[in-house]
């Protein structure tokens, strides 16, 4: 009995650790200076998401969470980078520094504020609901969601924006595996497909934007700006 108890403690701590690193990768998405670094941070983040899903699945003996972990690895760790490298190899390999609206230090400080904001939302939610399980996933997932949205807003370059979208999805699911562990599996599969579709379509769109405008600095496109 004692051993199983301590195993559960270690598993919880490991899950929390995945959460901590998940948060760090979300920061890395904002702080990184090159597209490839962004993609790498995203892959690590997806791995951590899968790891957390597998840990929680093992802990709660939930098959659907184990499957979610598997789906995440297949779609986000293997297929998405493959799709990106297929369509955007050139874009990813450029060593050019990608810029932001703010300097990285300011961005990091704003992100910290967002994380604290996410924390307060999560506390309210957790306080309101009776069930308390793997509570760390909710605030961190929410923070991941916000940081992804922030990355989309401040990045001027195409690839980091797309990765920001995918990171938002990651954040939502990082929270989801703890608050909605038996989410309909068909929906999980459909979301995985949807994420692949995002990667594919946005990849092609980026390529075409590059062909037609000669740049992928989408933040600088302002022909349509008025009022």
């Amino acid at each position, binding site marked *: 009995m004692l051993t199983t108890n301590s195993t559960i403690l270690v598993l919880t701590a490991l899950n929390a650790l995945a959460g901590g690193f998940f948060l760090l990768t979300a920061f890395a998405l904002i702080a990184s200076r090159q597209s490839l670094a962004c993609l790498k941070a995203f892959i690590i983040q997806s791995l951590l998401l899968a790891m957390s899903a597998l840990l929680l699945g093992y802990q709660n003996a939930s098959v659907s969470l184990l499957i979610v972990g598997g789906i995440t690895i297949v779609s986000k760790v293997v297929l998405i980078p493959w799709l990106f490298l297929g369509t955007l190899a050139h874009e990813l390999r450029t060593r050019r520094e990608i810029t932001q609206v703010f300097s990285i230090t300011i961005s990091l400080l704003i992100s910290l504020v967002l994380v604290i904001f996410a924390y307060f*939302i999560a506390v309210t939610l957790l306080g309101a609901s009776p069930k308390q399980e793997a509570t760390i996933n909710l605030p961190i997932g929410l923070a991941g969601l916000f940081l992804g949205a922030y990355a989309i807003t401040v990045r001027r370059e195409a690839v980091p924006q797309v990765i920001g979208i995918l990171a938002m999805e990651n954040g939502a699911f990082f929270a989801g595996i703890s608050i909605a562990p038996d989410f309909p599996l068909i929906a999980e599969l459909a979301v995985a497909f949807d994420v692949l579709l995002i990667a594919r379509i946005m990849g092609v769109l980026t390529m075409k934007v590059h062909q037609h405008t000669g740049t992928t600095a989408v933040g600088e496109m302002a*022909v349509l700006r008025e009022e």
Partner: protein
Amino acid sequence: MELIYILIIPLVCAGLSAMPTKRRWYPALITVIGTLLAFIEASRVALEVSSVTEVVAIKGWVSCDALGALLLLLISFVALTSAIFSWGFTGKVIAQNRPERVGRYYRRFNLFVFSMLAVPVLSQIALVWIAVELTTLLSVFLVSFPNTSEAFEAAWKFAVLTCMGAGLALFGILILYWGVTVSGGETFTWSGLVEAAPKMPPALLQTAFLFILIGFGTKAGLAPLHTWLPGVYSQTPSPVCALMSGVETSTALYAIIRLAPAVHGIHGGFPEQWMLVFGLLSVGLAAFLLIQVKEYKRLFAFSTIEHMGIILVAVGLSGAGAYFGASYQLLTHAITKSFCFFAAGATLRLTGSREIVSVRGLIRKSPFVGVSLFLGALAISGAPPFAVFMSELVILKSGISNGQYFSVGLLALFVVVAFCAIMFHVSHMVFGKVTDHSQVSALPRSYAIGIGLAAIPVCLFGVYIPGPLLNLLHLAATLLGR
């Protein structure tokens, strides 16, 4: 079974129109037939719903109630007129570009229609999210279809912003699911949600609602996240614009207002307050931006933002009359706005210019296009006796009878400002002095048929609504007020 057919038909059409062929009318014909079939099926569903209140194809997964049937009907109708209109549009494409693009256009068109039809038909909320997300993803390349750098810019902003919104909405839906499981709910469908809602912790419901409101609100074009919308509508091909503005925004809004019965009354009407604030903000912003607009397709784009705001305000006002007004406004906006974009498309085809200032005296160049543009402007800006006037009147009236004078007063003010702005611009376009005397190109016959077909409900529904449809609207209103 009709519901399943409705989903299958556009998929089959997409497959058929993707087949390589030399005849450029072949995919166009397939699409027109397909959308016609879908429209017929949707009408049957609507008829059935108006008598038995709900059609179920697969229990818990595919079903359709009055609100869904209303949306289904609107989507399939706009898809039909838009498919007819597209015939002439692709005729132009073929003249300039490669023939294989026509097949590509229709494949995307059908997939886009499929994704929109899936929204009201699916009853699992999680799947509805995916369907809404698909409407974005499958319309991205329709937006960028003109292959200009402006079109790509528009498509990019559209895709990124709406996907960002979808991410927020996904989180909201996960919280909703959490709430449903916590309160012991069985199914994660719209009706299951309404059943579980009273037992759900209000904080969860409220947070989920806010996330979904902001997330899907981005896609519905609600201020302040509407920034992608005008650019997209100015660049997208007009038949696609008609679909996007008439019904795609409505599908996103549908996902928001379906929450209304679940969140009704929590925290002292907190969600209603938010809907009112966002709605009024959108209406007001759109009304004042309408004044300085420079392109006529943008004019109708801002008008879309305005109408989305009006529907949200109507739901936020709450009360049987306001709910009826909201579903009525959904109907009138869809039919009128698609008609407006067809007229705008015809104008663009005739004059080749998007600018308001360079189009003058349209009625002398082409009486048909001039009249339809003017008619569309009158109808969309809410002049009597058109349908939009009626629906707006219903909303204002119910708001006054509820005693919400402040919101109603603001709404009325904004609507009047928008009316003046639209009529000012369009009357200049239609009646102004002809400045350039260049020969206008001929209008394809399919344009005339499409505009003619779209004009029927626009002119009719202000004075007469068929009994079953009225019944459907009342049913939808009761669903919202449940």
